[in-house]
């Protein structure tokens, strides 16, 4: 007969299996650094594991995990700003490299080139966003979360989320409009 601890461990394992790719994706899009995203993902699940017993299910597990990931990411940027002189090398891939990844659904080479160009422009706009705007934008348009979920994950009010999102979208629009 399985003990309560074993059940909890099993539950947590299935949580990792089902949510890890999504957490990794969000952190990768936020940092544009594969190694860093992998490290932060591991930290996120380590933290989640330590606090799993205190998770009451008031929000979905995904929202809870996303909140941990957002905080880890915030801490990382904060530490990096403080220690910027210690680490001059930046592992983030450049925008061109990030824009290379396209699904193979383009019907022609020309369309592919245009799509790559548009993706690059969105990346450029995302790069220019504030940390909060970027987080909200990625949660909405990459993770496709609802505004209420974003509000829970970020700890912001829904109105604030809307405002950040609106500014982020405006910036992307401007960036895209520049080449029309």
């Amino acid at each position, binding site marked *: 007969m399985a003990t309560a601890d074993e059940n909890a461990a099993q539950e947590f394992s299935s949580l990792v299996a089902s949510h890890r790719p999504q957490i990794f994706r969000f952190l*990768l899009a936020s940092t544009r650094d594969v190694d860093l995203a992998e490290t932060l993902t591991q930290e996120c699940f380590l933290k989640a594991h330590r606090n799993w017993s205190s998770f009451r299910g008031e929000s979905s597990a995904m929202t809870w995990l996303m909140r941990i990931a957002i905080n880890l990411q915030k801490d990382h940027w904060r530490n990096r700003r403080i220690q910027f002189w210690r680490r001059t090398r930046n592992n983030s891939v450049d925008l061109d490299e990030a824009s290379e990844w396209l*699904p193979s659904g383009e019907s022609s080479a020309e369309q592919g080139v245009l799509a790559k160009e*548009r*993706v690059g422009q969105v990346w450029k706009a995302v790069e220019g966003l504030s940390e909060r705007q970027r987080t909200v934008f990625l949660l909405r348009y*990459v993770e*496709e979360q609802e505004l209420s979920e974003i509000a829970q994950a970020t700890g912001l009010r829904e109105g604030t989320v809307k405002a950040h999102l609106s500014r982020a979208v405006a910036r*992307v*629009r401007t960036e895209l409009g520049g080449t029309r």
Partner: protein
Amino acid sequence: MRFKDKFGGKQARLEGQTEDETLDPMLEQALVEFRSSVLAWSDAAYQRSRTVLAASPRRQVWRLAAGWALGCALLAGGVSGGLNVRHHRQEMARIAAAHEAEQRRLVAEQRAREEEDLLAKVDSDVSREVPSAMEPLAQLMAEDETR
């Protein structure tokens, strides 16, 4: 095609799309492509990291073996170092004891010599202080000895 229509399973979620978020077709298209691009990149990177992790047990075995070897070497070094230190301390204590004994012997010898010298001096002083009436006899004895 609207952004919300592009992803069948997500339609209900994006019903919550606000009026503020009304997107023009070009922006919508760009966001769809952006999302697809991030997904493709993330999937590839995730697979890569999984592959690296899957390939890692062999490396872990090597790491484990290397760790054990290093641990054993450190332990052996520590033990032999400890023994060496102990041996060195014992040797130092032995040398110190020998040195102290030698010092004591030298001091004792010195004292003995000093005492002998003192006695000799006393003898000499006593012999010189013989009464003057006996002086001629003492001189004779000295002459006799030189012969």
